[in-house]
């Protein structure tokens, strides 16, 4: 039963709130005043002069102030009610009079009581809405707090993960580089030694070459692990492109002393933000690729130039050119086919190049020169590094 009333009240409340505030409040005021007038009218026929109309109107005022918003309607209703009682339910009927003793006092006390009731209900109402609002706010805050806590935990987990990755990478790179340095170094010492027979020299040369390839491979793997999932930001710094290119060429020349590589520089200065170690890695890979896979290691040329807002690096050879599979893979940006003799060793190197350039927001292309040979090109955004 109680629930039923509660539901009804809710329904009325919701329906009522569809009507704009002023007409609704006026309607409520008018409705209850009329009801009070009717009730008093009925009562007066039974009780005569000893009437209870004041109490009935006070009840109406209390209900009005409960159901309307603000003080205004309650106070207005109490004044109208007082006048109404005076006019209709007190002698002389149908006329306003303050002549009888007690009338002004009765009227004033009725207005005062109604006002007090009105003020009290308004306050209670305000407190109730305030309480509801506070509860809502507390709930929202609690939810937000929960969310923030979850986020904080996620961030903490993420940064811990990055830190762990960094330290693992550092350890792995140290643990891989150190023995490789030792192998390659020891072999070169042995190669210089007079006690090694010519037959063994060939074997030592093989060891040295493989150790050096492994070093490059490890560098590639470390680079690609660093950038692959994007969790570790690039260590970008403004760098002079020709110095990076020079370093890459010197490194390559140390490994392949017999090949010829030219470096063509631009007239203007290309100074742009990049992770120089990674870009250097790209250049080394492209040069090594040209030396080992083009079939002609004596006409390799690396050219630097500016094209619009890109600094472009071009590695060109005059070898046998690229297979359709490699061209297709570079064009689609997919991973290289890693199997098959045609791309042996080339796949990993080129994939590393592609992901490094992609992480820099640059472009990477490969094509065959109509006059023979392969051309690899990559461009890095100069990003307003104006000179």
């Amino acid at each position, binding site marked *: 039963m109680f629930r039923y009333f509660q539901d009804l009240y809710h329904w009325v409340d919701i329906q009522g709130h569809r009507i704009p505030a002023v007409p609704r409040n006026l309607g409520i005021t008018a409705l209850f005043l009329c009801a009070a007038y009717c009730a008093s009218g009925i009562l007066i026929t039974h009780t005569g002069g000893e009437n209870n109309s004041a109490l009935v109107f006070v009840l109406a005022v209390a209900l009005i102030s409960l159901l309307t918003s603000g003080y205004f309607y309650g106070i207005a209703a109490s004044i109208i009610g007082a006048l109404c009682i005076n006019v209709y339910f007190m002698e002389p009927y149908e006329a306003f009079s303050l002549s009888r003793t007690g009338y002004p006092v009765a009227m004033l006390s009725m207005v005062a009581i109604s006002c007090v009731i009105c003020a009290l209900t308004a306050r209670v109402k305000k407190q109730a809405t305030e309480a509801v609002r506070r509860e809502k706010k507390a709930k929202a805050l609690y939810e937000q707090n929960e969310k923030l806590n979850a986020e904080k935990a996620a961030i903490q987990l993420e940064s811990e993960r990055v830190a762990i990755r960094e330290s693992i990478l550092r350890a792995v790179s140290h643990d891989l580089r*150190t023995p490789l340095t030792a192998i390659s*170094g020891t072999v*070169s010492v042995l190669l210089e030694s007079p006690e090694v027979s010519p037959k063994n020299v060939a074997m030592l040369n093989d060891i040295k070459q493989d150790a050096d390839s492994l070093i490059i491979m490890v560098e590639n793997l470390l680079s690609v692990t660093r950038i692959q999932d994007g969790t570790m930001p690039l260590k970008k710094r403004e760098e002079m492109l020709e110095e990076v290119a020079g370093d890459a060429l*010197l490194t390559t020349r*140390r490994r392949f002393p017999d090949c010829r590589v030219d470096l063509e520089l631009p007239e203007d200065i290309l100074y742009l933000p990049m992770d120089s170690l990674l870009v250097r890695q790209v250049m080394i890979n492209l040069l090594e690729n040209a030396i080992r896979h083009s079939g002609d290691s004596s006409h390799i040329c690396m050219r630097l130039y500016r094209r619009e807002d890109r600094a472009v690096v071009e590695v060109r050879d005059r070898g046998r050119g690229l297979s359709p599979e490699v061209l297709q893979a570079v064009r689609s940006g997919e991973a290289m086919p890693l199997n098959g003799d045609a791309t042996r060793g080339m796949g990993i190197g080129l994939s590393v190049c592609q992901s490094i350039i992609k992480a820099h927001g640059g472009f990477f292309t490969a094509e065959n020169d109509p006059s023979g040979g392969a051309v690899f090109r990559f461009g890095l955004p100069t990003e307003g590094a104006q000179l």
Partner: protein
Amino acid sequence: MNEKQTILIIEDDKAISNFISRALTASDYRAIPAGTGREGLSLFFSHGPDLVLLDLGLPDMDGLEILSQLRGLPREAPVIIISARDREAEKVRALDMGADDYVVKPFGVSELLARIRSALRRADRLKLSQGIQRTVYQIKDLTIDLSKHQVLLGGEEIHFTQNEFKIIELLAIHAGKVLTYDFILEHIWGPYGGSGSNQILRVNMANIRRKLKENPSEPKYIHTELGIGYRMLDD
């Protein structure tokens, strides 16, 4: 010099230490290996080496700590740092703390020997000059005359701006030593010259390179140490 020059190797990896020792012995140096920082310091005091090879990643002591202890001694010996490629900041700090040069793991024997020769030559030069500064420096066909404020390339004068000449002068005075960006910036433009960027230096360097017709892939006079600084070649 009749006596063999002594080189102290402070390196914890046995295999690397071994092959460096062998390479040095084969090149007629006396090699003293030390596996820890503490051992390295005590061997430095007992042997007074002519040069120190120092790995920055030692198990017992921070490499930079050893470097600062070595620098505080009256008997100076050039120090060549052994470090990993991706530790630029560490190398720059070591160089600014007085290390002469560095090699990066993985390094080759010939590269290491070249660096050692260069550092030893520089140390000899400093000893001979007794603090008296030379006014003419000769690097291959490049003549730098500080008193005349003149640079000749194969007998022909090349005109440099004030700052370009100052950079060449600084590199020539320290020929063979790696000078970091910050070191050069501070000497040419004052302590606040770079204001956080070394662009001004890099651009000056690119211009110098163009005037000297120097290709960074075949450096004849100035070697670029990527991300670290520059070094004037001395042979």
